[in-house]
């Protein structure tokens, strides 16, 4: 395993040196470890590995290693990170809104306000869809259906308490129904819930837009709205905000340093991240992966984390997943 990581890493380094050899002359001496609090293949893992690639390609770090610590919506990785990265000048963590929800609903003793925010990186819109044969044509039709019988409106989406569930609850609330009565059938991810949508087993579905893009473009699913605050180029569905609902929810991912990282150490990490995010390489990665840029610098990100924490807690309480 160790060898494998080493080979993978070596190959990655060789690969980047070959292509960007001319840039590595400006390389700083940072030797970083990024913790992805999830298994290989998920969103946080791919964000971590993309960041690894971009940081080394732009010469903002000498070496970057990605460590996967999966478990419990990221709270296991977060707890370990808080323990090991306290005051550390070379440890980073990638996390997002799911971890905010998971630390609340798992009643975890750790949460994202205990680590040092560096920057918000990406933000993907969620989409609300119905099947192509559904009598529901617009978001207003959906609101009316919810209002008629909230329990008979079957939602499908990702795991309980995650961003999908939160959006379904917000829409239910906006329809004037009691979010505690929501009939939300949780699946392990956008894949399985997609099958339930295509099989006509549900009234409406929520997922990351990218996961269902193919079916929306082919006409198998009808997108009613996206949860992003502004319209997005290339996405036909309009934001909820533009359709008269005051709801915005973005599946954001950001990067953090350990607790109590201060002074020159913090500035070095901030600079490395900021320079990477502003590079062409990072923009190219965003484009290739279909991620929306949702960059926010440290101070803005810090207030954002605090407000997301409060907001998610109040929604989870209203659907009975937190007290």
């Amino acid at each position: 395993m160790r060898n494998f990581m080493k080979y993978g890493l070596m190959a990655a380094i060789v690969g980047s040196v070959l292509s960007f050899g001319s840039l590595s002359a400006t390389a700083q001496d940072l030797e970083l470890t990024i913790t992805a609090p999830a298994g290989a293949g998920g969103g946080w893992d791919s964000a971590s590995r993309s960041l690894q690639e971009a940081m080394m390609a732009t010469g903002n770090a000498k070496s970057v290693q990605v460590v996967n610590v999966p478990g419990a919506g990221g709270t296991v990785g977060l707890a370990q990170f808080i323990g090991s990265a306290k005051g550390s000048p070379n440890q980073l963590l990638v996390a997002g809104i799911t971890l905010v929800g998971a630390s609340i609903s798992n009643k975890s003793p750790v949460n994202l306000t205990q680590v040092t925010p560096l920057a918000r990186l990406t933000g993907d819109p969620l989409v609300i869809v119905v099947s192509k044969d559904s009598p529901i044509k617009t978001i207003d039709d959906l609101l009316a259906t919810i209002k008629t019988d909230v329990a008979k409106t079957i939602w499908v989406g990702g795991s309980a308490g995650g961003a999908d569930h939160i959006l379904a609850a917000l829409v239910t609330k906006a329809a004037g129904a009691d979010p505690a009565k929501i009939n939300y059938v949780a699946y392990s991810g956008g894949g399985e819930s997609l099958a339930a949508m295509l099989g006509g087993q549900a009234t409406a579905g929520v997922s990351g837009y990218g996961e269902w893009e193919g079916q929306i473009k082919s006409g198998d699913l009808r997108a009613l709205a996206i949860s992003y605050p502004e319209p997005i180029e290339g996405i036909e569905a309009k934001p909820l905000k533009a359709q008269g609902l005051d709801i915005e929810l973005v599946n954001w991912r950001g990067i953090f340093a350990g607790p109590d990282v201060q002074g020159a150490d913090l500035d070095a990490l901030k600079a490395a991240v900021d320079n990477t995010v502003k590079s062409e390489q990072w923009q190219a990665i965003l484009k290739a992966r279909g991620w929306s840029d949702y960059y926010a610098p440290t101070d803005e990100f810090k207030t954002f984390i605090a407000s997301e924490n409060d907001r998610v807690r109040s929604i989870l309480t209203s659907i009975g997943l937190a007290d």
Partner: protein
Amino acid sequence: MDSISFLIEGFALAIQPANLIYAAIGVMIGTAVGVLPGIGPALTVALLLPVTFKLDPGGSIIMFAGIYYGGMYGGSTTAILLNTPGESASVVTALEGNKMARSGRGGPALATAAIGSFVAALIATLGLAFLAPILVKVAVKFGPWDYFGLMLIAFVTVSATFGSSPMRGLTSLAFGLWLGLMGIDQLTGQARLTFGVPELLDGVEVTTLAVGLFAIGEAFLVASRHLHKPEKPIPVKGSIWMTKEDWGRSWKPWLRGTVLGFPIGALPAGGAEIPTFLSYNIERRLSRKPQEFGQGAIEGVAGPEAANNASAAGTLVPLLTLGLPTSATAAVMLAGFQQYNIQPGPLLFTQHADLVWGLVASLFIANVMLLVLNLPLVGMWVKLLKIPLPWLYAGILVFASMGTIAANPSVVELLLLTGFGVIGFLMRRYDYPIAPAVVGLILGPLADNALRRSLQMSLGDPMILFQHPSSAIMIAIATIALIAPFIFRGLSRFQHDED
């Protein structure tokens, strides 16, 4: 016949020397990571993603497919030789395969696994090429009620087959079901039976339980016996190749395993475990030598191995047609597609036909390469068994613990592994079957979620399970399979009375 001309074009793409090399590298890496427990194909593909960013899309996806198939081959090798299933899909292979190896027939066991995998993957890849668009329409209609019916069949057939008495089998199954309840409940997000340990929130890993019960438990048992009477290394009896009888007993299980594995693998929540269990049970029922099951029956390796590989090809159906990854490896492969701005889904077959058919063609080629790579290796693998037992089992202990730590570096995981090892030892010592516990852990949560999702969609009305013809039929089959043995026993007793 558009498909055929597309397929020929695909082969033209796949046999380009560069792509052949990618496929070869892929199958070799895949076999290597399959042999080492813990490093699954998913992790390998994830590690290689940034490297392949510089390759062209065709080449890297072909390489990933090679790793995927190669991992499936490699996983069965350790299951057979060392009783250490590297992944949950090769748990069943270990049952008969290791018994064969221990009675000196490791060669034929490995050979039937390799050739069966080849046959199954070949047929299933054909199925992928020609049936994918139709199959996927059926697969998405498969509702939670249907999954529940399928689980019931699996439960009934599995728990009835294992062990010296039904009571022992059910006890072991109940232990697995209890473990399966641990962790965050997917439908409500609430923690169950975690005793305040955060590492348990994700439940018990199937491979941790399987490796603990099978490999570590076995090592403890051998050690406890070794104290009294040192065992000799296992001799290799007869030819290391399959005899005529082996071929005769293998070919039907290969085909039946394929027929089970491919469609179930194509289901969005099907997986590779259920078809391997079902295949094992069917072969046991159909075998002309059922008494050999539990002692090393070749059918019990041939069928499940074919089912395992056929389901791996089946997994590609929802991945390519819906963009729906149904296994961790498929999820990483999806990320690989997206890296090149290619979105698998309903439009993939029309927009990137060259890529899809290139992939299908290279799966054929990867398969041939795997067979060529694996058959000569059989002789080498079998020599592993000549290692003196204390060394061999020490090696197994090291590999098993290292693999578990590699997959999830945590103290809790290691403690669980050791605990399961002790339980595995006790179960062997007191003659409880081990497989039902693993089955319970795999199927329990699936059945739990399927039933509760059905009830959630019907607003609590249990009749939903019978209103859909497909689920009603499956529940009927399960009921018959449960009651039939008792009725037959009653009937034969009745006939005895008449005599």
